[in-house]
């Protein structure tokens, strides 16, 4: 079973976004971590780095594959989860909390409204699986 918390926003690249005030926390979804399998390495940017929407800001690696992680909206990285450096498995065990990846300050907070809701994301996963 895939866990998709209702209070988060989502992207079609399988990131989740937790919005709090002017900042947003970003990670990969439970569905994404299940598809990837055991995570062995997470490469993250530095605080202060700027990325455009849909630009890769890092990568997450399992035994078999490397997947890029994409910026949900344009913005600046204000914090990164350095604990993943020594414990990348947190992405598997707790993707929505301890497995968070970066906190960003969006250039335009209104762009966050364009993200998917939990229900929309679940529909999207089903469509993807049916293809």
């Amino acid at each position, binding site marked *: 079973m895939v866990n998709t918390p209702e209070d988060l926003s989502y992207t079609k690249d399988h990131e989740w976004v937790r919005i709090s005030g002017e900042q947003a926390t970003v990670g990969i979804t439970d569905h994404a971590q299940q598809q990837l*399998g*055991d995570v*062995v390495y997470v*490469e993250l940017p530095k605080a202060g780095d700027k990325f455009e929407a849909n630009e890769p800001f890092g990568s997450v690696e399992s*035994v*078999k594959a490397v997947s890029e992680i994409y910026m949900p909206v344009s913005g600046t990285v204000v914090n990164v989860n350095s604990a993943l450096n020594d414990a990348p498995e947190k992405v598997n065990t707790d993707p929505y909390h301890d497995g968070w990846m970066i906190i960003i300050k969006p250039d335009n907070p209104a762009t966050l409204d364009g993200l998917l809701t939990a229900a929309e994301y679940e529909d999207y996963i089903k469509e993807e699986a049916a293809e």
Partner: protein
Amino acid sequence: MLKRTPLHDSHILLGARMVDFVGWEMPVQYSGPIPEHMAVRQAAGLFDVSHMGEIEVCGAGALALVQRLTTNDVAKLRDNQVQYSTMTNEQGGVIDDLLVYRLNEDYYLLVVNAGGIDTDFAWIQSHASTLNVEVHDTSDAFALLALQGPRAEFILQRICDHMLDRIPYYWSQQIEVDGISCRVSRTGYTGEDGFEILCHAADARHIWNRLLVIGHADGLIPCGLAARNTLRLEAAFRLYGNDMDQTTTPLEAGLAWVVKLNKGNFIGRDALQRQKAEGLQRKLVGFEVMDKAPARDGYPVVINGQQVSVVASGSYAPYLKKNIGMVYLPIEHTVVGTQFSIVIRGREVPARVVETPFYKREKRFD
């Protein structure tokens, strides 16, 4: 249309993730590469390796043919003995690596890589015409299961009357497994003790299911190609297509121990003799990445700002918990301890040459 092994339906039932591997629809993982890898190191794992090819060579000229086609000394084999070897072209390049089973003095079984079955068979046949010998590709008639890990013998013994401790490393026996006649060899590709079980395609599902049921309490789980790759890499077993191909020789691949230049003539011998006399220009070595980022197949390898190679095989090693791999380096950079760089997504990351195998199991009985 991808080819399927006789165990295809069993993999689907077990929830395996299936992938295209050299034209075969194969299970890459069931529970996950890391738990599967650890099960083989600590208990036991069962692999479907039925995609591997079987080529039978029989007749009065069988020994002469296999001797001419392979680099190891087939004349040293006794009945039921198994030998790791390479098949080389005239330039000494590796056409395939394989296991040679001597069934009797006129009957040899060659177990070859899945990707090489057609070319190997054509190559072998093209050299058979002048000899009194028959060559058959029997790949479709057989399934091959690998039962690997420290608990493998204990598990298999429960459905075998034959005393398995009488089958030494790299020997085989035609015996009954749960009443079904199989060729069982103490061989494998994981660095652990274990067996490979060659049976008729129609018997594969019974043996597969039976082993999983009786081995469950001992920690036996089904394992896919992902774990097979990380296990073989920790043991520094070469993977054909990654660590060697027609452009590399077995000497460069670090397999001099299967090249018997004094056994008499064989295809590639002159080239290999010359290379040995002149000295190697490059060699396959093991490396460890001095960074948390895994170095993967094909990543560029740099020495003094110049790209000299690419990673032949590279992965996170689940048992060792390190990032390891194999790479061809210029001979002057192959000494253990030598440092070089690997380019990982634009970043030069330090690595160093280390001893292989990366992992060696503790021998418990001998």
